[in-house]
């Protein structure tokens, strides 16, 4: 690489710092991409196993009423999408070296994550009250409970970790400890969490909407 700076603005000081050959991205970002691919496989396996159970059981429970479950999960989807939007705006602000604005966007993104988790937990509590647990359902289809709580629980863990990650990032970036590239890497993680929900929401919620009347 003849140039001293790459497209992402990383000075090429040693072969280990990345930013040059072969992908012109820094090593942290490449590491995050590899993590994302491996995490994709984790969720793919769970969703494939779920899809099989869903299609193999004609009497699969359909507990999700329009209100509250579907209304709530649709707004959760929109909140998560909106938090992805604030995240890209945060990354764009970080690349303009606008520290104050970046911190604000990052905290707003984290707030979206918190709102998502709180709504999701109230949704879980609702289901507990209706008799759905990770090991049983009123209809006697324990696989529903296992897959629903397993997959949404793993996703919720990712959201919670993301919120912590973003808060640490906003504090660190505000103090000048992290660079705009680090903000971008945290953005990749956050968008991935959003992406996973784009599969979990239709495959789990929308496949089990209550169809009465």
């Amino acid at each position: 690489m003849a140039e001293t700076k790459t497209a992402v603005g990383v000075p090429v000081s040693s072969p280990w710092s990345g930013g040059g050959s072969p992908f012109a991205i820094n090593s942290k970002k490449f590491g995050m991409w590899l993590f994302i691919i491996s995490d994709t496989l984790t969720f793919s396996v769970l969703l494939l196993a779920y899809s099989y159970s869903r299609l193999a059981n004609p009497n699969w429970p359909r507990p999700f009423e329009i209100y509250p479950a579907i209304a709530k999960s649709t707004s959760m989807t929109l909140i998560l999408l909106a938090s992805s939007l604030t995240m890209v705006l945060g990354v764009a602000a970080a690349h303009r070296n606008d520290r104050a604005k970046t911190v604000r966007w990052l905290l707003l993104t984290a707030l979206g994550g918190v709102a998502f988790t709180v709504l999701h937990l109230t949704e879980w509590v609702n289901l507990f009250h209706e008799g759905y647990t990770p090991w049983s359902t009123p209809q006697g289809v324990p696989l529903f409970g296992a897959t629903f709580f397993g997959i949404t629980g793993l996703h919720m863990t990712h959201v919670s970790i993301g919120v912590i990650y973003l808060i640490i990032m906003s504090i660190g970036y505000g103090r000048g400890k992290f660079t705009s590239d680090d903000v971008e890497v945290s953005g990749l993680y956050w968008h991935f969490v959003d992406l996973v929900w784009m599969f979990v929401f239709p495959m789990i919620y929308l496949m089990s909407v209550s169809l009465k009347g």
Partner: protein
Amino acid sequence: MSAHESGSEVHAVGSTKLFVMVWIWLAVITFIEVFLAYERLQPSLMLTLLVVLSLVKSALIVSYFMHLKYEKIGLTLLLIPAAIFCICMIIIFFMPDGARLLQMRLTQ
């Protein structure tokens, strides 16, 4: 907060206007999915349609929000085929027995 985010501001990774457009599309596809959920379709057909729409959404997220579209093409060629290959391997190992068990259940 958004007063300064004018649409004319074009950065190497895309403009605010583009991100908002992508967001609107993602929201529209979400509403299509919710609408579809109340059509009484065969579960397998429904699942296929929902997964296809979700794949469109994830393609939008990956290309614009994670701006893979603006990275070197080599990164895309490394990551996406690897993921697709592994998922295909999972299906190849999982489906034959899955289909057989289903058949056994139906003939009982």
